[in-house]
């Protein structure tokens, strides 16, 4: 953490604080949206097929659980 702070002061100089705050607001939004997309991708990847199965098992007429696995 200390090394990161020292790099920032070296790079920005006098206009340091205000410029970095504005940049970090937009940067924050980008970072949050990237984080959200990554989580959404993982959720969809693991959860889509179980979601379809759960929705399908709850429609009328309700199929039995063994019908999911047996080939008949």
């Amino acid at each position, binding site marked *: 953490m200390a090394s990161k702070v020292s790099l920032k002061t070296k790079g920005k100089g006098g206009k340091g604080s205000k410029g970095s705050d504005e940049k970090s607001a937009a940067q924050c939004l980008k970072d949050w949206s990237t984080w959200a997309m990554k989580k959404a991708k993982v959720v*969809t990847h693991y959860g889509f*097929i179980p979601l379809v199965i759960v929705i*399908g098992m709850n*429609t009328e007429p309700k*199929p039995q659980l063994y019908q999911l696995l047996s080939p008949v």
Partner: protein
Amino acid sequence: MAGLVPPGTTTIPAEASKTAHTKAEEKTDYMNLPCPIPFEELQREALMSLKPETFEGLRFDFTKGLNQKFSLSHSVSMGPTEIPSQSAETIKIPTAHYEFGANFIDPNLMLIGRVLTDGRLNARVKWDLTENLTVKANAQLTNEPHMSHGMFNFDYKGKDYRSQFQMGNGALFGASYIQSVTPHLSLGGEVFWAGQHRKSGLGYAARYETDKMVAAGQVASTGMIALSYVQKVSEKVSLASDFMYNYITKDVTSSVGYDYILRQCRLRGKIDSNGCTTGFLEERLNMGLNFILSAEIDHMKKDYKFGFGLTVG
């Protein structure tokens, strides 16, 4: 007042009035044109006839319905898969896949998911929010980073037009619009912007169809010109031809094919200007049991692909 009407005018000959009435019906009612087909399906008849899903090796598909709306599918395929290579030769590695799928099909909501043994997921969602507005989503997700794709489409269907807006990952945006201009002719256009590759494009399309034939053409600023013509010779036979020209890379491909839809089978074949012939047969052995034979012979590249399969359910 009846006495003032001259007697001659009341006796209009019956045939003249009938022909006048039918002529009025044949005159196009521009306020009541039919809804055009969606922009991405513009060349669907030609694609169905000329580009069947040929494969190589064994393919076995089993679909088990648990419900009217819900079904599971198991699919096994074994055979050589091509990998892209720098040299002119095609390199093939034998691979075997098992794919599990779950489908939920409702009049308003359709969910289709397919997952392979290596973890790749192929998901499609189609949701009819209202009678005219539809949301579609399509995703191919993999475990490898940066290799996943996703796309959302919002479709609006008007009385005689359709419009669509697309958003995809990698800052891909697109919009398309198609309008019926006469009962047989529809014209449309599309525009897209790909942020990641910094490319944008514009395209125009036209489609003329009657009961016996469909002619469609598409021009895009990416350099592609695609024209197709399908003639329905009889109930069972359709002939199709296709012409694709890229005016930037100066590539030309033309193909001619047939599509026989018979009682027990469907046979499709085509021959290409690249020296490639394809044949695809789907034979219905029994109720719900289909036998598939696929052949693709590329004389130029010396690539011969033959496949056979069985589809149950």
